[in-house]
């Protein structure tokens, strides 16, 4: 299972024999400032190569011993050597390169300068060196963003200006700076935080290790996990992040969606600027629990919980076939990993992570009555407080319900157009199931946070149900 693989990778880094000191040259532990695709955990048997900057950036590293001509790639060199009509023996490569090579970054202050964090790929180290320590020669003329690596720049130019940014309040922006400024002052932000604060107290009282809940969590973990693919480069990640925020630019094919969400998922966790701050805000177990659920496998804070949720994963798959098909609906799925507040910080994974965490924290607060929602979905649901009886329904609620709750804070919401947003679909939904099962009527609230059967549901949900 991919999750486990990824986990192993993460675990390996901790168990790595050479890792006596994880961060020789950085100010924060790598686990806190992990970049998206945690590089630099090489095979202990590999030969460590330290090239000078000049050699590293030399374009023609592969030299023909016969004529001295240089080539960028080994394959090209081999092709060329054929032309020398060498005797058979010499046609073979003299050195078979049995040893795997890993490369360290020549920049002394860099974390990858230490052999324990060497990178296994020469192209990778070249790009890394350029990106972090090189001169940024390539500039996007639309937004004047700079890149040191030409391929990064090209990839960015393709998507620059095509993105749209949508705030929780429904306004769409084509310019990132005005989006950010708007977001900072937007009432939606104020509401979210208010709900977070209100939520945290309720969170504590409703945490329970209910199996059903685990199922849902596991399910979502699985959903996230299976589609998780390791890393891509910066551009891909940025693009995918934005894609999930955007209304249109990137086509939401099933695969693409999954890839997007997973890379985001990984990046959210790994690109940790302020993981420690997030931890601070995640005061309760409850929240961590959410984290596990939200971020799938790569949770560095609670490895134990991580494992548990992962194991649960496999058991739930079978029990939720319907959800599987629902999930594959691109629009739903893409938005599922789309926390509202991602919009705000969209430019980096850090923001999304914080946003997701805040979102996750909120979920508990908004205990809600899934029956109204399910009613709107056209599904049956056991009513009242006995929500927990029908496992499937609960899971439905888990998948769909709380997002609606989260998006609406109070009666005010009913007038806002946000219901139409895909961004309302939110992963941290399942949380509300727990309060339903445990509490009596006391805490149940309509999903939208308004009393009564107020079915302000995004129209797309009904549409998607048709697909089921």
């Amino acid at each position, binding site marked *: 299972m991919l999750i486990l693989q990824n986990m192993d990778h993460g675990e390996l880094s901790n168990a790595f024999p050479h890792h006596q000191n994880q961060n020789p040259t950085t100010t924060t532990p790598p686990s806190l400032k992990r970049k998206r695709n945690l590089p630099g955990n090489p095979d202990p048997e590999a030969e460590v190569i330290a090239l000078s900057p000049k050699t590293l950036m030399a374009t023609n590293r592969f030299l023909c011993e016969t004529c001295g001509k240089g080539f960028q790639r080994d394959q090209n060199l081999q092709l060329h050597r054929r032309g020398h009509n060498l005797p058979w023996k010499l046609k073979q490569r003299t050195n078979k390169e049995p040893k795997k090579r890993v490369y360290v970054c020549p920049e002394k202050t860099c974390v990858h300068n230490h052999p324990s964090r060497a990178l296994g790929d020469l192209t990778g180290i070249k790009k890394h060196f350029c990106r972090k320590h090189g001169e940024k020669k390539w500039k996007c003329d639309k937004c004047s963003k700079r890149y040191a690596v030409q391929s990064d720049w090209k990839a960015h130019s393709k998507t620059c200006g095509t993105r749209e940014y949508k705030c929780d309040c429904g306004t769409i922006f084509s310019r990132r700076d005005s989006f950010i*400024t708007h977001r900072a002052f937007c009432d939606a932000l104020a509401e979210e935080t208010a709900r977070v604060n209100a939520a945290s107290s309720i969170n504590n009282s409703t945490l329970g290790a209910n199996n059903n809940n685990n199922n849902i969590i596991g399910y979502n973990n699985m959903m996230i996990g299976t589609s998780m693919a390791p890393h891509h480069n910066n551009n891909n990640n940025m693009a995918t992040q934005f894609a999930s925020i955007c209304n249109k630019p990137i086509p939401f094919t099933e695969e693409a969606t999954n890839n997007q969400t997973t890379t985001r998922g990984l990046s959210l966790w790994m690109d940790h600027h*302020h993981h420690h701050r997030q931890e601070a805000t995640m005061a309760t177990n409850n929240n961590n629990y959410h984290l596990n659920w939200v971020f799938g496998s790569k949770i560095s804070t609670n490895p134990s919980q991580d494992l548990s949720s992962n194991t649960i994963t496999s058991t739930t798959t079978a029990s939720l076939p319907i959800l599987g098909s629902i999930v594959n609906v691109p629009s739903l799925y893409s938005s599922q990993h789309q926390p509202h507040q991602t919009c705000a910080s969209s430019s980096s994974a850090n923001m999304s992570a914080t946003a997701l965490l805040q979102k996750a924290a909120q979920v508990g607060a908004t205990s809600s009555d899934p029956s109204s929602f399910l009613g709107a979905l056209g599904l049956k649901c056991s009513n009242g407080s006995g929500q927990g009886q029908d496992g499937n329904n609960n899971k439905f609620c888990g998948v769909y319900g709380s997002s609606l709750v989260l998006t609406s804070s109070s009666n005010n919401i009913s007038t806002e157009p946000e219901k139409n947003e895909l961004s309302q679909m939110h992963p941290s939904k399942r949380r509300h199931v727990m309060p339903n099962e445990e509490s009596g009527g006391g805490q149940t609230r309509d999903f939208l946070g308004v009393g009564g059967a107020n079915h302000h549901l995004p129209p797309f949900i009904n549409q998607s149900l048709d697909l089921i």
Partner: protein
Amino acid sequence: MHLSPYKKTHFNNNIPHLHHHHHHHIHDDDASAIDMHNNTTTTNSTSRCSSDSGEPCEDGKWACKLLKECAIAISQRDSTKIHHLLWMLNELASPYGDLDQKLASYFLQALFCKATESGHRCYKTLSTVAQKSNNFDSARKLILKFQEVSPWTTFGHVAANGAILEALEGESNLHIIDISNTLCTQWPTLFEALATRNDETPRLRLTVVALSSTTVSSVMKEVGQRMEKFARLMGVPFEFNVINGLDRLGELTKESLGITNDEAIAVNCIGALRRIEVEERESAIRMFRSLNPKVVTVVEEEADFSSNRNDFVQCFEECLKFYGLYFEMLEESFPLTSNERLMLERDCSRSIVRVLACGGGDEQNNNDENNNKEEFEDCCERRERGTQWCEKLKKEFSGAKFSDDVVDDVKALLKRYRGGWSLVLPQQQQQEEGHNSNYNNNTLSGIFLTWKEEPVVWASAWKP
């Protein structure tokens, strides 16, 4: 000579433009009666009163002409003419009309106050009215909308943020002293930049010196909360403070601003220096220096109401030219029936009254109730040009050039707006102004935002 659509050109037929006014018939007769100039040159399509300094308005539009006539009459104390012109302007003016009518309306108010020496009273009334409708929501809406349609303010923000980020690079404890009226709209993008930097996100403290005490109480509190929330979202350790200190800016100290020794200081002055009384500006700059900042960013609007403050007509012309440009810019940037534009225009009316009708010792002495300077929320608003500010700032600081990156960022910003805007570097601007400039200034710092090739905003960075 390169023919630019924005530059003044020499046409002989400006008269057809007047047909657009429905009250043209009234104006025509009177115009010929009053017209004291042999008007053979005009601008081709704008109502902007563009003119070289020192020359009367040669514009074909009626508002500028009438207004100037009136100003001259006032300075000459020709009461018949004053009455006549005031009456005419009153007939023609309207704050809801076209550009000429608006200019006429707002400047008429100032001229009337000047003529009747009721400037202070009028200003107080206008301020009180404005304060009543001053709340967070409306202020936010106004400022954000303005920033969306025009780079007038965002130009300074981007330049200042760029300079601040570069100057404070590598520091882990930042403290920004924000002396401005931007309601912190400058800072979200800075938070984002800080949070997405490759290195450790530094701690940021922001101390806002509010330019008016009413804003402090009603609006800044809310602004502060939003900033705190947003900084949390961005993952930037953040602390926010507001103090009201513009009236005693020169007396602020490290202690009163809460500056600690381990912090790297940036002083951000947007539209603030002009609100300091002219005589006290140098001491304010000295105060900045005493804080030992890593960088001081100054953004001001490009107009000179200060060197000519004792010459009413000259000051009036300068005022008319600047606000004419501003109103024209507003008209072209906002949609036709924009409430926000109306609000901004009304804000101008207070400034115009303040500059034209509230200056001078006589009036102030006459108004006993107004001895307390704090009555005036916006102080004098006597703008100065970049060159003039440079003269003052050079005594305590040395100009820091904006890096190529920042310049590129600003250019990219301007591209995102409708046409007409461009960035002009100091050496280019000096060439432009060379023949007019009274200042033998070889080292003009800062960059200019120009609209239709007229410099309107000046942004600069300074280091000790």
